[in-house]
């Protein structure tokens, strides 16, 4: 038997199911609102509740919404990140396959770091003078700006 073919079939079935389930989740969990900038859209998922609550209390609760920090600038960038994240969040949420303490991915952390500079470039101009090395992280010191612990 051709093992890899079976794997392919299995994957196709799983993916179909995932898209189906994802779509179901998308509709039922008011997925359309995911496309807006309304933070309530994120909090539609109860697993986002704590982040929503912590965001409300944070220094940015009144100046930046989730998407300001979690999507890159520009229409295409914004919606492609949303699409990728949206799919995986729905899938993870429905399957339950995610850790209790959600960890931000490297990719999304980069997006967020970019977001800080998007708004604060004036302020940080001087400290970026010596190097614009993008591994120099803002949240190393300002971890709690988006979500007060």
């Amino acid at each position, binding site marked *: 038997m051709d093992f890899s073919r079976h794997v392919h079939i299995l994957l196709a079935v799983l993916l179909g199911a995932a898209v189906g389930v994802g779509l179901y989740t998308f509709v*039922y969990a008011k997925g359309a609102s995911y496309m807006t900038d309304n933070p309530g859209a994120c909090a539609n998922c*109860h697993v986002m509740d704590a982040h929503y609550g912590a965001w409300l209390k944070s220094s940015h609760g009144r100046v930046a919404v989730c998407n300001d920090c979690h999507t890159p600038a520009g229409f295409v960038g914004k919606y492609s990140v949303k699409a990728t994240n949206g799919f995986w969040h729905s899938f993870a949420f429905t399957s339950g396959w995610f850790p209790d303490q959600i*960890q931000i991915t490297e990719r999304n952390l980069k997006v967020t770091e970019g977001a800080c500079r998007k708004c604060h470039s004036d302020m940080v101009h001087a400290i970026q003078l010596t190097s614009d090395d993008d591994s120099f992280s803002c949240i190393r010191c300002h971890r709690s700006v988006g979500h007060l612990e």
Partner: protein
Amino acid sequence: NIAQRKQEAQSPFYRVVELNDSIEDPEIWGKNFPMQYDGYVRTVDQKRTRYGGSEAVPRTPDQADPRSIVAQSRLEQDPRLRTMWAGYAFAVDFREERGHAFMLEDQTYTKRQEVAKQPGTCMHCHASVYVPYKKLGDGDLIKGFEKMNQLPYKEARKLVSHPVACIDCHDPSTMQLRVTRPGFMEGIRALKASQGVADYDVNKMASRQEMRAFVCGQCHVEYYFKGPEKRLVYPWANGLRADQILAYYEETGFKDWTHAESGAPALKAQHPEFEMWNQGIHGRSGVACADCHMPYQREGALKISDHHVQSPLLNINRACQTCHKWSEEELKTRAETNQERTLSLRNTAMDALIQLIGDIKAAKAGGKTDQQLEQARNFQRRAQFLLDFVEAENSSGFHAPQEAVRVLGESINYSRLGQVALRDGKSVAGTD
């Protein structure tokens, strides 16, 4: 799925049975709180971490001891412990501790029971004693405690039936946490008095977050049996630090036994997790035992406390990553780095103590009098207690990394001073 989860979120618990203050059996409580009960029964799991957890070691059950699985022997892992405890029951049997499910049978069948007559006091921390105490005291918890303390172990054993159970930590009507152990009520009162707080009543005056550590402090503490009544006492009247507890024993002149090889008036330290945690940065930051050992866990739309009490290193995502954004691997390494440093100095301290004991033994054999040995024996008493305080503390130093190592440093000093005193046959200037 989401529909079910939305539903769950609305009515988290169903009151299936009516609980009251005389229902001991956790299975009955579990009818109302099945998820907590599920966790609770999983404390039978045995899994090792680098320095903690426990290993399931098979054994052949016999007449005296029906257990077919025990935890690994610490005496075999480090035979120096036999020398340290020579003449005391611990030198006969001492194992790595394991989950709560085993506490009653491990106490009942330890070989320590065969070599020493133990009092009913032991029960305080190895069984669900709340209902039995109340029964024995005709409704008065403290009276029941005092009565059970004075029974022989075998008699007391007949009065209890469960390891620590829901009722020992929870009020059945509100499910609020509560302290049910007289030892802790009195110990914390003495401690608070030393800090200028009079008449401290833990169940009235502690905050919810404090209770998330105090319920564990009911048992995970240093203790001794006071007087002929064998009253369980937590030696906290001077404070919780190892040296403050040692000072307490020095003032009261208490000893656990006379060391078989050296003749020193020795002390045994036991599981001072609560005391050490109090010296550490997590304790200081208000991070309670339950935050790490019973972290919140997602059950559908709910968050519940994981009642599978265990090593947090078996559960780093939930136990640590709520607060720390480092990777699981990195967090494990951080904890283990603290543990390694502690254990490396613990080994230096252990060698020093064993050499001191050897020296006193040789001096005794060589005809030195008790008077000539007195000073060295006193150094041994102190060195040994301080070392044992860290040795017996079950986090291998994690709960208070710097303090654990400081205490070991003082222990080393005493052991070596004992050797010097022995050689000088007189007091060493400025150190006594």
